[in-house]
């Protein structure tokens, strides 16, 4: 029983990380209706920016994080302006493939610059294990959970309480009405992309610090598809719940069915949820009669 609780807690803790990764997808999808297959690569780029600033330039880690966030934001906004805006109104296929193409571009570029070797980031979060009662949780996992949940909550608060956040929500719910009340919708969507990319970049740094960094770091992001589908593609609260659910399920399948089931479980969940409740737990149900 103790083992079960320990696995559960570790699973839930890693779910926080999934929530943070998924946040970037949800922000973009909510505001612009685009599912960004390049989100994982934006994470990877963020981690390399952090690596370059802290290790190659030898700067302080706080400065590295700042650079990561700023570069992430700029990259996200640039991508929106240069690729997604000209494709507005195109069929899903074009938009999906454009983001896939962007991902390949980022991955290829990172590979050309940094090579395929594994890199190790400096310790960012304390590694000392945390004890809850007599249950041990690895320090990296615990603190990553804390940081992830704080970032997601900060985003939630931003959307709820600030002027910019309300403008983003307005643009997401109806572009025409947002225009009508004088919101600069194109700027909002560029800013949303920027925000999503910078949260992604932070997620990338955390993820790379937990494991290691290669140009293929972004491939991990596809595993959070399940989080998104369970929570609903356009729900911020769903991200947290979905992250925790999937994190817990992964820990359980990993513990009781073996490591390979752990990898495939999210995709099975995706198919099941799509069949039963395509909009997820918290997503907005689109009215489609056919």
């Amino acid at each position, binding site marked *: 029983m103790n083992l079960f609780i320990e696995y559960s807690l570790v699973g839930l803790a890693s779910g926080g990380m999934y929530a943070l990764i998924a946040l970037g997808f949800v922000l973009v999808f909510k505001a612009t209706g685009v599912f960004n297959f390049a989100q994982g690569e934006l994470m990877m780029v963020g981690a390399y920016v952090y690596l370059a600033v802290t290790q190659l330039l030898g700067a302080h880690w706080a400065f590295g994080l700042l650079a990561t966030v700023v570069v992430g934001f700029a990259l996200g906004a640039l991508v929106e302006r240069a690729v997604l805006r000209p494709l507005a109104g195109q069929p899903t296929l074009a938009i*999906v493939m454009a983001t896939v*193409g962007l991902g390949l571009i980022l991955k290829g*570029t990172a590979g050309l610059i940094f090579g395929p070797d594994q890199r190790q980031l400096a310790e960012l979060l304390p590694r000392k294990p945390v004890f809850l009662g007599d249950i041990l949780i690895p320090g990296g996992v615990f603190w990553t959970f804390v940081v992830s949940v704080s970032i997601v909550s900060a985003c939630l608060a931003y959307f709820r309480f600030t002027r910019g956040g309300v403008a983003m929500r307005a643009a997401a719910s109806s572009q025409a009405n947002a225009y009508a009340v004088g919101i600069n919708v194109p700027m909002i969507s560029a800013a949303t992309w920027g925000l999503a990319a910078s949260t992604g970049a932070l997620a990338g740094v955390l993820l790379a610090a937990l494991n290691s960094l290669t140009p293929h770091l972004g491939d991990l992001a*596809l595993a959070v598809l399940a989080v998104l589908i369970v929570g609903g593609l356009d729900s911020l609260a769903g991200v947290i719940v979905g992250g925790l659910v999937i994190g817990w399920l992964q820990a359980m399948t990993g513990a009781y069915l073996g490591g390979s089931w752990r990898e495939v479980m999210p995709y099975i969940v995706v*198919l099941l949820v799509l069949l039963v409740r395509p909009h997820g737990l918290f997503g907005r149900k689109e009215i*489609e009669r056919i």
Partner: protein
Amino acid sequence: MSLSKSLHLLGPRFGVLPLSHADAERRIDDPLRRAGLAALAAALVLLPFVANAYIVYMACLVAITVISVVGLNILTGYTGLLSIGHAAFNGVGAFACGVAATRWGFPFWLAIPFGGLVAAAAGILVGLPSLRIKGLYLAIATLAAQFIFLFVVQHWESVTGGDRGLQMPSPDLGFTRLDSDFKLYWLIVPVAVAMCFFASNLFRTRIGRAFVAVRERDYSAEVLGIDLLRTKLTSFALASFYAGIAGALMAYFFRVVNPEQYGFGASIFQLTAVIVGGLGSVLGSILGSLFMVAVPELLKEAVVFVAGADATKSAVFLASARELVFGVLIVGFLLLEPFGLAEVVRRVRARLAVWPFRS
């Protein structure tokens, strides 16, 4: 030659005047096209005799890719159902064919269609959710199916051989074995040609038109009396059948079937070929496949030229350069030439039709 006569010769599909019902019904309706196709057929027959082994190998590879990409185009380009898991159906076809050939001793002419049919069945299964979900959600479902497929073949070792895969025998004709690329060419290319003709004719039939109607506006299609579920499933089945045949041919061509060949990357590769070639165009699928098979080869030459002969270094470099180039191709074509190479061809033809005047 009078001007009108030359217009007629130079203007495929442009300035063709059907004078009888038979004329109007002709599939290939102008002399230039007929001449072009005859020349192409002659070139395909002559190619293996004049080209070196490398070209023959590449030609087989292109032909297999064409089959698979035409299938994906039927589903994604013509029916408008985005699939990010097409390579999984290549894999289903390849493994079904491989198991049939190695374990049950099927001859190749039975094993290849068997691969296609099993893939078609798998396609219907994956297509079932398409009535409830569409667009992005369907794409995600096919993506999930892709990963689940990989998991199944990697872990169902008693049948698929796991990560080691299956070793394929050479196709046996009785009097000879097709054990070289030169011989396999005569199996692969005719199949590819036949399947391209089938696909381009399909869109002159009720079924093919129904696909296009579903793509354009699904509820209007239903109002017109098109059974949506049946049409979508037919499209999935056909596309997967094409993919399965391509996979089975791949199995015989590479002489080995293993899960690595049928991953997410291969699916994206085929989608790229569809986009580069042109959505909803069989000609586009052919051009796109040719282009996408040729690009990495040219890139290889370029990388060897730049990085020198250091094999390991250039292999590493090449993998990244390939990703970058594919990405640039996808984004570039979507932004600048969204209808792909087929549209370029159409424009050139339109220009030629009125040459030397400007259109």
